[in-house]
């Protein structure tokens, strides 16, 4: 009997406990549902804003194109008519009339230049003028610029001299030759305009380990100290009326600075040494990085190629070439023709990494990847996907496995690219996670950094480096490629867009995981332009530094021990 009572009592207690637990669970479900609804609402709102922004951008593009065309058409008639009249080909005009025609002609030219410059600046500011980076020779570009400006220099009675580089080095750099030539011509044109007849303009070049420096020294009237910086602003001139007298637009130096910063460089003006009475005037200094495209990254001895790589591709030719290349670099290679073979090999052999072709008959690359990641034995083996899709173009939504691969190489690939990505993946699976924080707001950076310090946990070491400028970011990436980048879009010396564009051109950096921590809304097109490897977009106004830290730790964990089918999740409703 007592036993029965005890049993009933126990049952009662258990039921009550269950009931309480059930209520709690229901409550939690309600809270979660609310959160989900809120997230969906936010996401819809964001989508709407994105659509509106994109629409606005299209309208702006059309407007600029139309303005450009509509202004040029009447100018073409005016310019042509005036040119023919003042040439005297159609009959003599008297001196007064000729002078009036000349005034009309020069001002038409000025208007044309103004329209061109405004369009140029607008394009550069909206980052649509992407750079076509090539290896350039600085001396060649200088000669070209001097030749282009020769008629103007001759008319002004000014000579331009290229002072030979003291070490006799031929300075080469990675840049967009057309843009750099435009910059050089603008600077030369300025120097010529403000030089008295007979005064030479001197071009000096020199190098630092990472940069080249070009100094354009004129003997003109000089720039007052307080205007050395403001002359780079739009429509700023040393003396009012300069644009009329000298025929400039007031936009040349702004364009120069835009081009220099797009290249990760800088430009500024200095007053010439006043103790040198023979050379008053100014010197414009251009400093730009020399090497911005890496053929390969130096590998640290710790990650010297070693270990077994499994190559899975249905094309025997591709497999053979891959295997050959990897063996030459010290790896041991296993080959699999089909996905199921690859899984079997990975289950029974010690394998450091898998190179996986995405499109294979039978078990596709995706399915193979899924099975590898869902199998506890193989889940930790890093996978580098080989695909005709670019890493930036890979589907970003609705494909939870997309981030299950640690590496991505686009076909056709070079040996360098493949080895760099494989090296990165192997390197990333050991040691502390190296984070590069690119943020020009010191206060915000301090907050983010302190969260990382506070959140440090054993076994999840993260080393974080903070840089403030585009220039420093490139230098940091070149010195030691990070595992994850956190990027602020607006930087003092350029924008995140140009950094991403640069990174995309670096075989070894083009697939880095990236977190864009942006202070403003980004259009879908902008997001596309900012996509690197696995990319997350976090708006500053919605995501606290603490959440950034959490996301980074999740990403680092993922790099170290990839969890099966556990995609990296941005804070709810914000992943893109």
């Amino acid at each position, binding site marked *: 009997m007592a036993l029965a009572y005890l049993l009933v009592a126990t049952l009662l207690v258990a039921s009550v406990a269950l009931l309480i637990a059930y209520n709690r669970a229901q409550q939690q479900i309600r809270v979660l549902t609310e959160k989900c609804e809120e997230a969906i609402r936010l996401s819809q709102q964001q989508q709407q804003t994105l659509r509106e922004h994109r629409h606005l951008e299209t309208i702006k593009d059309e407007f600029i194109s139309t303005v450009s065309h509509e202004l040029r058409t009447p100018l*073409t*008639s005016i310019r*042509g008519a005036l040119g*023919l009249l003042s040439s005297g080909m159609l009959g003599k005009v008297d001196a007064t009339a000729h002078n009036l025609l000349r005034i009309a002609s020069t001002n038409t030219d000025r208007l044309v230049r103004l329209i061109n410059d405004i369009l140029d600046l607008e394009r550069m500011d909206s980052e649509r*003028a992407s750079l076509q980076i090539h290896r350039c020779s600085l001396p060649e570009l200088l000669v070209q610029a001097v030749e282009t400006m020769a008629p103007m220099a001759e008319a002004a009675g000014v000579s331009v001299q290229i002072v030979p580089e003291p070490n006799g080095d031929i300075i080469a750099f990675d840049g967009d030759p057309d843009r750099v030539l435009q910059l050089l011509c603008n600077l030369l044109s300025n120097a010529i305009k403000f030089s008295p007849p007979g005064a030479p303009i001197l071009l000096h070049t020199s190098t630092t380990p990472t940069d080249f420096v070009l100094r354009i020294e004129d003997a003109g009237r000089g720039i007052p100290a307080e205007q050395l910086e403001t002359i780079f602003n739009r429509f700023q001139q040393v003396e009012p009326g300069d644009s009329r007298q000298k025929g400039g637009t007031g936009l040349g130096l702004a364009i120069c600075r835009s081009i220099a910063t797009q290249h990760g460089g800088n430009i500024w003006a200095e007053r010439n040494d006043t103790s040198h009475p023979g050379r008053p005037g100014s010197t414009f200094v251009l400093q730009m990085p020399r090497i911005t495209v890496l053929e390969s990254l130096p590998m640290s001895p710790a990650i010297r190629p070693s270990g077994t790589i499994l190559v899975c591709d249905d094309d025997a030719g591709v497999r053979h070439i891959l295997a050959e290349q990897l063996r030459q670099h010290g790896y041991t290679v296993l080959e699999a023709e089909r996905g199921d073979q690859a899984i079997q090999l990975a289950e029974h052999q010690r394998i450091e990494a898998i190179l996986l072709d995405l499109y294979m008959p039978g078990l596709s690359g995706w399915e193979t990847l899924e099975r590898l990641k869902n199998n506890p034995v193989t889940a930790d083996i890093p996978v580098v996907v080989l695909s005709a899709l670019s890493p930036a173009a890979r589907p970003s939504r609705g494909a939870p496995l997309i981030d299950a691969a640690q590496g991505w190489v686009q076909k056709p690939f070079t040996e360098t690219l493949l080895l760099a990505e494989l090296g990165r993946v192997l390197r990333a699976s050991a040691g502390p996670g190296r984070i590069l924080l690119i943020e020009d707001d010191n206060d915000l950076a301090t907050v983010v950094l302190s969260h990382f310090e506070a959140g440090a946990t054993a076994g999840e070491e993260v080393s974080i480096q903070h840089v403030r400028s585009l220039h420093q970011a490139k230098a940091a990436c070149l010195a030691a490629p990070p595992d994850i980048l956190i990027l602020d879009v607006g930087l003092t010396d350029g924008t995140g867009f140009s950094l991403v564009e640069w990174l995309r051109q670096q075989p070894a950096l083009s697939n880095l995981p990236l977190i864009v921590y942006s202070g403003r809304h980004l259009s879908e097109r902008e997001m596309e332009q900012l996509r690197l490897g696995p990319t997350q977009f976090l708006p500053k106004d919605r995501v606290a530094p603490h959440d950034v830290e959490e996301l980074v730790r999740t990403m680092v964990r993922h790099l170290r021990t990839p969890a099966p089918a556990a995609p990296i999740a941005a804070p709810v409703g914000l992943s893109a």
Partner: protein
Amino acid sequence: MRRILIIDDEDDIREVAALSLESMAGWHVTTASSGAEGIRAALADPPDAILMDVMMPMMDGPTTFKEMQAIPAIAHIPVLLLTAKVQGVDQRRFAGLGVAAVLFKPFDPLTLASQMSTALGWTT
């Protein structure tokens, strides 16, 4: 004497360009104010080269060029496009059409003829 056909919907530009080519190079110039009129003129009396505006109502420059390419009697005549669009994308698009050259508005009336000669490889 070289014979040039100018196709542009703007009366003033046609006149200035024609005057420029006639007085600077001594070429014989005829004009047309639309793509369709241009094709008819070229068929009736094939010129040595065609200078054609890009932005025209009804049939624009690139479309007119493609139409001409499809007509064997005039497909061989070199076409130079004249455009007020200076954006890189547009330039590349026009250059990709297979025209002899893309020239920009506003053009310099004193050098238009020599620019055309250079692009066409004409020495006289």
